[in-house]
């Protein structure tokens, strides 16, 4: 009997053994190595073994690198805010509408998630480039006579990322609006509050966790995005992700690349842990 119980205790470990070993070898250890590389000196991509904080000092004392780090945060915050601003009315509409197209409309608002970020960003390049749709329209309407240079720019990156990440905002805000008890709104209305007052006094505050959650989630993803800044930006609008690519694949300075990777990793983790802490509080 005791032997059977012993066997039973082994079962979960037998189940997880292979996949856990795989993750240990190709996810945990590489991540730890990356973090340690960020505090090790190296020459020509070969670590020399000496511990140092020089890599971080180099990053933080160079204006170009500091700008890239700051720009990542600005891009993350701005596109996160834009996502929430656009996603909220859409999510509210999708949750409340009684239209028979409801399911189709929901599917349509989430469908962009299925396309690669590259596809979704390419459309913005077509719209915003020198001879793009927007410039053609502005010129034919006689508003401008010279094409506006909208690329590369930080603003274009922000708009492109907000566009790419909008479905995440819709999903998070819809989840929190769905969890909202409709009788609270009815109670407010029956006590004489108008539609607008009910919305601002009841609905909006109660869906705040969805708003903050959607903001933090898109902030974190936008901050580490590569494709959109690469397509809509340029040498004057480097962000952390594009700098990391430069360090790793062009300059072959893996120490600086790892150090910037470590900064990106810690920032994104803090944001996402905040998000999930918030989610837990909401459920509790």
């Amino acid at each position, binding site marked *: 009997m005791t032997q059977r119980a012993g066997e039973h205790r082994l079962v979960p470990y037998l189940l997880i053994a292979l996949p856990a070993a795989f993750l240990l070898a190709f996810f945990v250890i590489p991540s730890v190595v990356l973090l340690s590389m960020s505090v090790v000196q190296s020459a020509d991509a070969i670590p020399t073994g000496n511990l140092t904080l020089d890599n971080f000092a180099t990053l933080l004392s160079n204006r170009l690198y500091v700008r890239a780090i700051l720009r990542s945060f600005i891009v993350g915050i701005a596109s996160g805010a834009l996502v929430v601003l656009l996603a909220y009315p859409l999510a509210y509409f999708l949750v409340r509408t009684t239209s028979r197209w409801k399911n189709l409309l929901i599917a349509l608002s989430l469908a962009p998630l299925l396309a690669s970020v590259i596809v979704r960003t390419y459309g913005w390049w077509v719209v915003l480039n020198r001879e793009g749709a927007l410039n053609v329209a502005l010129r034919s309407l006689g508003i401008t006579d010279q094409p506006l240079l909208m690329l590369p720019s930080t603003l274009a990156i922000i708009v492109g990322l907000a566009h790419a990440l909008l479905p*995440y905002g819709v999903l998070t805000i819809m989840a929190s609006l769905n969890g909202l008890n409709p009788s609270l709104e009815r109670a407010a209305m029956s006590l004489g509050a108008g539609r607008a007052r009910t919305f601002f006094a009841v609905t909006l505050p109660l869906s705040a966790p969805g708003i903050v959650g959607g903001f933090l989630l898109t902030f974190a993803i936008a901050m580490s995005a590569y494709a959109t800044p690469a397509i809509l930006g340029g040498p004057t609008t480097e962000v952390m992700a594009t700098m990391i690519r430069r360090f790793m694949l062009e300059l072959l300075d893996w120490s600086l690349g790892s150090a910037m990777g470590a900064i990106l990793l810690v920032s994104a983790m803090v944001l996402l842990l905040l998000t999930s802490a918030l989610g837990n509080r909401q459920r509790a």
Partner: protein
Amino acid sequence: MPWLSLKLVVAFVYLFMLGPIVITASVAFNATDRSYFPPRGFSLQWWEAAFGPQWLQPLVFSLELATLTALISAIAGLPLAFAFQRYEFPGKALVRAITLGPLILPTLVTGIALLQFLSLIGLGRWMGFWALLIGHVVICLPFSVRTVAISLAAMPVNLESAAASLGATRLAVLRHVTFPLAAPGVLAGMIFAFVHSFDDVNLSLFIARPGERPLTVAILGFLEFGFAPTLAAVSIVSMLIPLALVALFGRFVGIGDFLYQEAGHG
């Protein structure tokens, strides 16, 4: 009429969301070799070019990679989800955190970590297909573990004990009760894994190599030389594949339910 103005705002948001995709599709019909919008003239030459060898090779590569990734993620995800859902054991929280970790860490960081690690231990020659397969399984595994866990959690445990009390052996319970009921979660996980692998840029960017590049990396490489209508056509083709997959199987496994649950998890 607040509801009417809300509808107007919503219409604008849909325009913002779908406009660029529609524009990309229409650019691919240009008769000239520039990405004009509205398109000038009408031609199907760029769609032909999108299926030429230059683009077919990375497309097939991506399809193979995503298919294998989905299969391996499902096979590795099932026992993990089963252990998490049905057993209490020391170290469970840690293993679970490690499994879901790739969702929390930026994929780009996972990519450079793998690039560095494989090179440091002398497996640089794995760069390309094998490294990509490893990396994609790492980042796609959380999806299949989560969807399987969701269907296991939705299944009443009573069902399994009922079968056992009626004399079914452990294996028979697994085969006739647990697996069939977990199947939608396994399939949904495979779809998420396939789409995630097929669309990935941030990891593949670092561990692909010439001749062994997924479609997304091939597109990015091409972008450095400029934009051509071919690219619009290729983009649309690459968008239609995951769309078709979900349209075909999504309803069957109730993919929408899983998506809601995913968002609920933050």
